[in-house]
């Protein structure tokens, strides 16, 4: 009770304090200059001018161009999707330890656990680990190719991020089969941003264990038409310092048994229109979470990715840009090649390599100032091989699998005074599971300080290699999703902006891992199969203020499964309005206050509503537990002077007992997260002399 009161008091303080901070500021940006002032303005100052005054800091963010939603650079308010832009400043000031801390503050996004300690993403109440959310790092697909999953938790370096562009809705019409529910595009600092050397050391410690210790190094520069950047990220972390208890009541400490050790090198080179990106990502984790009982010791569960891409923007004339691209991807996900102890024989070897060769040709054509076309074609081949000591074979009776996919996509963007319109579609043909066609339509309209978006999108999820291999009936098909969204945005003042959106998601033939008591036609008892339907609907609200004193963001996300069909394994038993693992109500609040020119104080709070998940009950029986709402509150204080940035912070200030819940009935208990953790971060930047 005492702890609850503390939570409530802290929240009340933050909410009451923020409007005072806002009111304390002069809204100078909204005051239009008089004629005499304008007459004395330089051309540079005039260029920043509009009739309502000089663009505010918030308007500059809202008007900054992002191309994740359309491949054509458009402002946030005109992008044909429900989008979120996260800036470098927000990431730095929040003291985020990793992408989970950053993305948790985005409406509609939350995290849950799969198997073997892997934490991944959910979008609007839907589990999205396997190929339903596309994760791009500098344009490279980071989803692994075997199960199409992403891995979160001390995996990617947040200190190197320039911005993150997020589509909180479908993106398949452009990006294909991994972008069914959303796209997260991480853009790191390039040579022009760096123009020097930068080093960041971060350390986090809880009362019981090391939280994390990471080092980030980067170097980059731009000389006329040539630029380069090289960044490295190395570290060690524990997922948690708490006790894990499986569904049969077996338990162990997560300290030293839930390592998250990144080793990431990211190279970018650009000369005129030619650009190269190379990424080496060796994410080494350990787990004792297993199928059945936990293992007696921690075993590796590693994810290796090697990616390379070469592309060339050929500007044929002022209107047409042609971009040929070739890329290569080599991955060893969920990798374990050691010899487990006899009592841990259920912890199986997994040594499978997936390789992808991809080629594409994209054309951007500005037919007129108001009509733009993006069209292209793409071909890729996926190969998979099982190598010793992994003793298994694929379902085709060999240790290799191959398939090809060819696709064509097109999008037309019309920008007229009456409204902007986006029409697009993508057609894929796969040598194993056949063809897919996904159209999209977006209508965007800005009236005075209001903007409106109506979006209708079809998207699909391409079955991954293991979805095909482990198909229960040997006939897995892509799943299709229809998403209808409506968003209203309002610029309340030049410093305040809010959006409200509603969405309705229906997924047909969702691909689900299924265990049956009766053998299928192919003799399998378990594997992937297409279920009839899955869906959620809901609403999201986002309110932002940004000014010279700092910024504030308050957002709320709600989803329900009421009136929708839900896959039985995903449904929260006893509550037909929720899925397992994800809260129907989630509130995020962050405010960053520049106490002085050099010092910022940034509290962030996530209030995660009631959730459901399977836990150990006693006598070896699992049961569905109703998890009470949890408040995760954090604070980070950053000081910068000259080339040095120093920060201290506390994550999970109230020491909340937060667990990542398995969002389906899959026999894995909730995975504890880190308790209260104190962190320190130092960044030193040295600019090259001009």
């Amino acid at each position, binding site marked *: 009770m005492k702890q609850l009161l503390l939570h409530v008091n802290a929240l009340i303080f933050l909410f009451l304090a923020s409007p005072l901070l806002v009111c304390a500021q002069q809204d100078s940006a909204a005051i239009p200059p008089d004629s005499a002032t*304008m007459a004395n303005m330089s*051309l540079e100052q005039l260029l920043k*001018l*509009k009739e309502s005054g000089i663009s505010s800091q918030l308007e500059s963010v809202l*008007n900054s161009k992002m191309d994740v939603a359309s491949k054509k650079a458009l402002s946030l308010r005109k992008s044909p999707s429900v989008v979120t832009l996260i800036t470098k400043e927000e990431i730095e000031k929040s003291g985020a330890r990793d992408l989970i801390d950053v993305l948790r503050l985005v409406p509609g996004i939350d995290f849950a656990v799969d198997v073997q300690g892997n934490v991944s993403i959910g979008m609007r109440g839907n589990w999205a680990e396997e190929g339903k959310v596309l994760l791009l790092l500098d344009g490279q697909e980071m989803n692994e190719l075997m199960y199409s999953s992403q891995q979160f938790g001390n995996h990617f370096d947040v200190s190197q991020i320039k911005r993150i562009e997020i589509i909180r809705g479908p993106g398949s019409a452009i990006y294909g089969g991994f972008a069914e529910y959303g796209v997260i595009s991480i853009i790191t600092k390039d040579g022009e941003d760096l123009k020097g050397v930068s080093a960041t050391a971060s350390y986090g410690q809880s009362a019981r264990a090391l939280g994390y210790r990471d080092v980030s190094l980067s170097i980059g520069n731009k000389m006329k038409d040539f630029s380069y950047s090289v960044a490295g990220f190395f570290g060690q972390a524990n997922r948690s310092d708490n006790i894990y208890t499986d569904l049969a009541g077996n338990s162990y400490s997560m300290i030293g048994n839930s390592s998250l050790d990144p080793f990431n090198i990211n190279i970018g080179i650009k000369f005129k229109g030619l650009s190269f990106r190379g990424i080496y990502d060796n994410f080494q984790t350990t787990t004792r979470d297993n199928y059945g009982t936990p293992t007696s010791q921690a075993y590796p569960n590693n994810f290796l990715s090697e990616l390379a891409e070469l592309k060339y923007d050929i500007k044929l004339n*002022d209107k047409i840009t042609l971009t040929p691209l070739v890329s290569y991807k080599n991955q060893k996900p969920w990798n374990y090649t050691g010899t487990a102890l006899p009592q841990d024989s259920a912890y199986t070897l997994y040594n499978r390599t997936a390789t992808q060769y991809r080629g594409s040709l994209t054309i951007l054509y500005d037919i007129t100032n108001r009509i733009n076309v993006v069209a292209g074609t793409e071909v890729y081949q996926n190969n998979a091989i099982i190598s010793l000591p992994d003793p298994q074979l694929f379902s085709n009776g060999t240790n290799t699998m191959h398939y090809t996919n060819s696709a064509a996509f097109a999008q037309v963007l019309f*920008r007229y005074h009456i409204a902007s319109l986006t029409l697009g579609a993508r057609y894929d043909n796969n040598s194993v599971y056949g063809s897919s066609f996904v159209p999209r339509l977006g209508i965007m309209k800005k009236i*005075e*300080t209001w903007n409106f978006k109506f979006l209708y999108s079809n998207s699909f999820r391409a079955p991954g290699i293991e979805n095909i291999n482990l198909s229960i009936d040997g006939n897995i098909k892509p799943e299709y999703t229809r998403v209808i969204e409506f968003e209203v945005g309002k610029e309340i003042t030049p410093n305040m902006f809010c959006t409200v959106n509603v969405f309705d998601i229906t997924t047909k033939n969702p691909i689900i891992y299924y265990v049956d008591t009766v053998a299928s036609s192919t003799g399998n008892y378990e594997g992937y199969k297409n279920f009839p339907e899955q869906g959620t609907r809901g609403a999201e609200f986002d309110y932002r203020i940004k000014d010279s004193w700092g910024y504030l963001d308050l957002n709320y996300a709600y989803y329900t499964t009421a009136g929708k069909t839900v896959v039985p394994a995903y449904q929260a038993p006893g509550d037909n309005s929720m899925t397992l693992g994800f809260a129907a109500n989630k509130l995020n609040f962050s405010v960053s206050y520049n106490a002085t020119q050099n010092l910022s104080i940034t509290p962030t709070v996530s209030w995660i509503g009631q959730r459901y998940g399977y836990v150990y009950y006693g006598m070896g029986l699992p049961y569905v537990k109703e998890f009470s709402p949890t408040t995760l509150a954090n604070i980070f204080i950053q000081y910068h002077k000259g080339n040095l940035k120093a920060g201290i912070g506390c994550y999970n200030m109230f020491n909340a007992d937060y667990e990542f819940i398995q969002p389906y009935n899959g026999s894995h208990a909730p995975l504890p997260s880190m308790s209260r953790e104190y962190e320190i971060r130092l960044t030193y930047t040295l600019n090259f002399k001009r």
Partner: protein
Amino acid sequence: MSFNSFAQTLNYKIASLYIYNFARFISWPKNDKNTEFVIGVYGSTPITDELKRAVSGKLVGQKPIVVKIMTTLDTSANCSILFIAPSQDANLKKISEQYKGKHVLLICDKEGLSKKGASISIYLDEDDDYKTKFEMNKEYIEFNGLFISKSLLQLAAKVF
């Protein structure tokens, strides 16, 4: 009412100040014998009054700036800058031919026109909060014997 509401048309007060700044950052040939720096306005447009206000009492070098309304095109009118009203956009190519090599900066007020004969075009950028921007055709300007300062080129949203 904010600028981006209703009409969403160019703010001529800002456009006039742009034109004044162009006069400062572009160099005309020194053998020019005119005693005034003439900005001509061809066609009916609300910019005329704003332009008169903006340049009132201002000089380019030692020359006072004057604004002259032109009902017909007269290449001997000694204009240094000619603003072409939107009603004359259709004749732009012809006008541009007529003024070729005459040391005149032709200015329009619609995006894309500096690729169709204008030296500079001032326009509203709908994607950037309806800010007033300008595009330049460096080739046209230099062909007409005018010199553009590097700083002005850097401020242009587009240079053709």
